[in-house]
């Protein structure tokens, strides 16, 4: 626009619009992904000086109701949540190992101790709440598949693409996040109900819980307010097991199976797309490599 003469502009504009029409309507996304990605990354980087501070300011003005950790009670609750998560994770790990031992194929590749945490600020969120961009990337040791949490114990989502300086995180409540398996904590740590949860795209997850009965045949039913935690060995790393997905907001008969209950779960931290800061979980080994690379630089 600046350097083109009026004559050139006259020809260039229809050509540019024509090129956009072709790209928009004819060229499949899979052919654009490779070459558009770096430009998108650059654009995000250029806009970050504005979007980052404004996002933080918006978070400051209208904070997500993350459980308070500054007050004494808040700190105790935070510690309690952390210990509870750790204990449940240990129990889940123990149960998993017991099963593995029974099946005589013990293949432990990762332990909960082999993970490190990296705080990262959220610099952008997609308008349809399906993606968050965090200021941490491969140079910090982050990789695709790493887990994002809020306050270490609340599950936020998974990294789907990590670039040099930033990464995209898909929140578990995003409509494209896919199903996750969790357990409803019914009675302390002794009684749980399995549930397969699907995101609704409106900040909640919905799914049927298993039909489980006590010894005297009475059905164990989930209640509003009970915690739901992650227990999905197939889709999530071992270190993410027993992180808090949310609390039960609604219980109703399942439309598919009348004998079962359908639960609606909402994350305790509120709208996951409005979170200002996240804590990334990543393998310790990768973090070491990243810091060594940083030192050598």
């Amino acid at each position, binding site marked *: *626009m600046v350097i083109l003469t009026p004559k050139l502009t006259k020809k260039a504009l229809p050509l540019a619009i024509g090129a956009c029409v072709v790209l928009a309507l004819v060229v499949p996304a899979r052919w654009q992904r490779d070459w558009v990605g770096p430009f998108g990354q650059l654009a995000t980087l250029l806009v970050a000086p*504005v979007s980052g501070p*404004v996002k933080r300011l918006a978070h400051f003005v209208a904070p997500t109701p993350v459980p308070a950790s500054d007050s004494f009670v808040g700190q105790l609750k935070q510690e309690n949540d952390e210990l509870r998560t750790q204990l449940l994770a240990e129990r889940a790990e123990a149960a998993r190992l017991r099963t593995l031992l029974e099946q005589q194929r013990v293949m432990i590749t990762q332990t909960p101790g082999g993970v490190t945490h990296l705080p990262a600020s959220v610099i952008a969120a997609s308008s349809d709440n399906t993606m968050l961009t965090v200021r941490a990337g491969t140079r910090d040791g982050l990789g695709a598949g790493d887990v994002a949490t809020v306050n270490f114990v609340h599950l936020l989502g998974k990294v789907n693409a990590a670039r040099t300086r930033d990464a995209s995180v898909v929140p578990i409540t995003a409509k494209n996040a896919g199903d996750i398996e969790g357990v409803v904590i019914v009675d302390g740590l002794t009684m749980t109900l399995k549930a397969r949860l699907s995101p609704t795209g409106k900040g909640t997850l919905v799914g049927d819980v298993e039909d489980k009965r006590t010894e005297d045949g009475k059905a164990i039913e989930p209640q509003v307010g009970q915690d739901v935690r992650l227990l999905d060995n197939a889709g999530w790393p071992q270190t993410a097991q027993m992180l808090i997905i949310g609390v039960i907001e609604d219980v109703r008969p399942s439309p598919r199976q009348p004998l079962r209950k359908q639960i609606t779960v909402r994350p305790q931290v509120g*709208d996951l797309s409005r979170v200002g800061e996240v804590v990334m979980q990543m393998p310790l080994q990768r973090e070491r490599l990243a810091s060594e690379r940083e030192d050598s630089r």
Partner: protein
Amino acid sequence: MNKLALVLVAWVALGLELSLRPALALGATTISPSFVICILTLVAMFAQPSAVRWTALLLGLAVDLLTALPIANAASDTRIVGPSAIAFVLAAQLVLSVRSVMMRRNPLTLGVLAMLAALATAIALVTVFTVRSWMFDPIAWSATSELWTRCASAVYTGVLGSLLAFALLPLAPVLGLKIETTMMAGRAAKY
């Protein structure tokens, strides 16, 4: 037109678009206003037609590059160049065609035109992505839900445009946009 000033304003608008839209969303919905369309409308109200089209095209390309679309049934995303660029050019063309009959110095005009531009953008984008989702792209897309959300967002953009007009109209001379002196000038000075 002062291109440097326009680039700066567009940069800020793109930053606000990325960061503030989720915060301004109505409740648990994704109905939120667009800052970029407000800027585009301002330019389309006062600039030369060719400059308006170029601005629309470049702003649209920037929005395309910043928009990651979720892939259906996979925790992955993609960026597609073109849809917003076309939609913005169409929206700018709509504003160009009606601007001569509008009282352009009235803040409400910016709001109304921003709403119309956002509606045109919404219809164009939903059409393009619906065609793409039918033809060849496995994007997570629901035409009805998207159309409803984007139309509601267009109304919200109109409201935001009316409010932003109080800041954007005085900014127009800085951007090198010529606001013609009309009989309405006296009344507009109040704003």
